[in-house]
């Protein structure tokens, strides 16, 4: 016991010293960028203002945080490291694993009803539109990219290009030729997958980070072309007045032939939102379903084999060119679907919606979710997109930090921070197990740490 007390004392000294050093580093770190602020004064000159209280507050918070880490978190981590790893998953875990998917699908189908029951008719638009539809678009994009990154192991940082191709295909064809959404949805997908093959072809030899950077370059090239080809795309100004999808030919408007009038309901913008919600839900589930089925086809197995070891694949006679191209094409097709849905939902598109940040968001959703795991991707999309959307709702923070405090400007800041933290916490993503697509007697999931992977 004597020794233990000794350790404890040494611990305190060390913790205090660490906290002091950390606070000092934080002070140095934030001195120029938080302690001082550049503002433009009335004469349009740059001047400096100081924010010493804020600087000292942040320094103190960082120091205190380090102290709390030494006293609370670190011992807990050490204790956890000593705990034996359970061999079989607990009963509760397998129960959750078994019933999670049916429950989740049931929940998303019932979601609009639940929201309307809780918030009433008028308050629900925001929750279904900003949360439901927004998250589902990213779930769908995540699942689409999951085919390329998660299954085939091809790191794609320019995925948003195909999303843009889908959106612009729908917008331009619908505005120019007046085709309906239902004709253009498959067309947008086809065009996007065509672009997937076109861009996929030159980069077949590349792997890993190099592939990521080249796809990033392609994504940016497509965006720059969209910006500068003003005759076709109207450049930065974007395309507005894109026709909305109709319910089997019945538009969602307040006219006599509108949805509400035809079904004898009172007009409300909510019907369109609910329709769009189920539309994107159906598209997302289609993506998931196709992926699940594809994994059992030869091509799906070839993708996963390619992800694990390309050389072995080639020696076993798998045509890696075709395998990679189909992955690119499939992924791009779903991005095209999502893009045309996006254009139809917004009614307005501009290059601003297709920046690199979107690609990074989608890729991070796939990796944070655990590459290849569809449930993981869905959870990551809910956490990351729902999390940033909920920042818009935190008005009570204004009462704490004063009326000038605007939580929305911290959205992307926290988004980036969350990416870093989740990676440190779980480098393999949230769902880091791998379920085999082919098995002998029983399906056994294994931890991803046990597979080699990641040279694709």
């Amino acid at each position: 016991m004597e020794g233990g007390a000794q350790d404890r004392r040494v611990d305190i000294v060390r913790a205090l010293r660490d906290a002091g050093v950390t606070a000092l580093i934080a002070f140095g770190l934030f001195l120029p960028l938080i302690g001082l602020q550049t503002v433009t004064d009335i004469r349009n000159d740059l001047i400096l203002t100081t924010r010493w209280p804020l600087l000292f507050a942040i320094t103190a918070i960082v120091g205190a945080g380090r102290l709390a880490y030494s006293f609370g978190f670190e011992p807990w981590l050490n204790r956890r490291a000593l705990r034996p790893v359970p061999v079989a998953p607990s009963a509760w875990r397998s129960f959750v694993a078994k019933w999670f998917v049916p429950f989740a699908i049931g929940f998303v189908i019932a979601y609009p009803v639940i929201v309307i029951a809780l918030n009433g008719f008028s308050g629900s638009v925001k929750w279904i539109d900003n949360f439901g539809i927004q998250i589902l678009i990213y779930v769908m994009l995540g699942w689409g990219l999951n085919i390329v990154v998660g299954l085939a192991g091809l790191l794609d940082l320019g995925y948003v290009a195909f999303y843009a191709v889908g959106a612009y295909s729908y917008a331009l064809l619908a505005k120019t030729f007046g085709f309906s959404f239902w004709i253009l949805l498959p067309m947008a997908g086809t065009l996007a997958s065509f672009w997937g093959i076109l861009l996929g072809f030159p980069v077949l030899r590349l792997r890993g980070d190099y592939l990521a950077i080249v796809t990033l370059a392609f994504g940016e090239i497509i965006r720059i072309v969209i910006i500068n080809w003003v005759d076709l795309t109207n450049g930065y100004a974007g395309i507005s007045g894109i026709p909305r999808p109709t319910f089997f030919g019945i538009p969602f408007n307040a006219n006599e032939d509108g949805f509400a009038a035809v079904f004898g309901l009172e007009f409300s913008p909510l019907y369109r939102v609910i329709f769009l919600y189920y539309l994107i839900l159906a598209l997302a589930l289609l993506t998931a379903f196709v992926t699940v089925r594809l994994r059992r086809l030869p091509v799906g197995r070839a993708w996963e084999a390619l992800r694990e070891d390309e050389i072995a694949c080639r020696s076993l006679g798998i045509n890696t060119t075709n395998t990679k191209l189909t992955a690119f094409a499939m992924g791009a097709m779903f991005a095209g679907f999502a893009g045309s849905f996006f254009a139809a939902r917004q009614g307005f598109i501009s290059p601003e919606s297709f920046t690199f940040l979107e690609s990074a968001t989608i890729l991070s959703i796939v990796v944070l979710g655990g590459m290849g795991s569809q449930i993981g991707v869905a959870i990551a999309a809910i956490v990351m997109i729902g999390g940033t959307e909920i920042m818009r709702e935190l008005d009570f923070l204004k009462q704490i930090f004063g009326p000038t405090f605007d939580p929305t400007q911290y959205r992307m800041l926290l988004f980036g921070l969350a990416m870093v933290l989740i990676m440190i916490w779980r480098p393999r993503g949230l769902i880091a197990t791998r379920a085999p697509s082919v098995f002998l007697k029983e399906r056994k999931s294994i931890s991803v740490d046990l597979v080699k992977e990641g040279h694709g």
Partner: protein
Amino acid sequence: MEVFLQQLINGITLGSIYGLIAIGYTMVFGIIGMVNFAHGDVFMVSAFIALIAFLILTSWLGLTSIALALFIVLIVAMLFTSLVNWVIERLAYRPLRGSFRLAPLISAIGMSIFLSNFVQVAQGPRNKSTPPMVQGEFVIFTQNNYAVTLSFKQLIIWGVTAMLLACFWYLVAKTRLGRAQRACEQDQKMAALVGVDVDRTISMTFVIAAALAAVAGTMYLMYYGVVSFSDGFVPGVKAFTAAVLGGIGSLPGAVIGGLLIGLIETMWSAYFSIDYKDVAAFSVLAITLIFLPQGLFGRPDVEKV
């Protein structure tokens, strides 16, 4: 001819800036095999630090000698940016070392988003422009009423870049730290066995990379006189292109790649279309990676089974 010469001068200036950033990419990639996506944003942060230091010196302390001010700004920016990058490496990359290959890349992308938004929140979203720091130019010659000029700030950029590259070369080629770096690049485990502190060497690599990015940031601020929170991404990608073109992992390659990218960009803007100048740089990246993946000076990446 005279347009070409002028563009050559502009291109070399721009290329020096890219080259300085590219060294950061190539060094980090060489030593831990990761594309440090946040490096472009570290460059942007350094430009902000330089801006703030410059304002302190001129408006608070009333320093009138621009040369002295620039010198101090350079040192301050290098110090603080090094600290920033050191902390980033400690917090965001070191815990992921030896982990799943994509994890550091995602962490770096997250860091890049964090940095640019942090600067946006802390310093405001508007472009920050300073009055011109250095004015004046040499007229080299005049032909057909077109004067080919070399401005003093371009000359400063050339001079500072050349001087720092010389220091940097000395550091990598002749000092103990440089030897340790090269050893870690070849084989980290073996380097650790013969007594190289690998963690410290990697930290120092990030510090040096940041210091060079800070030089680039200061030069960028002095040259263009304007900086905004979103200015990190495109120069970052172009500098990465430069590193790839020169052969990633090769230090002289990064500098030459930077100069080439700078020249390609200015020539493209002058003779073709300025709207598509980024397309030129990105196409160079794609073409290099497809046809010459090892770059101009890189070692070919031999795949072992």
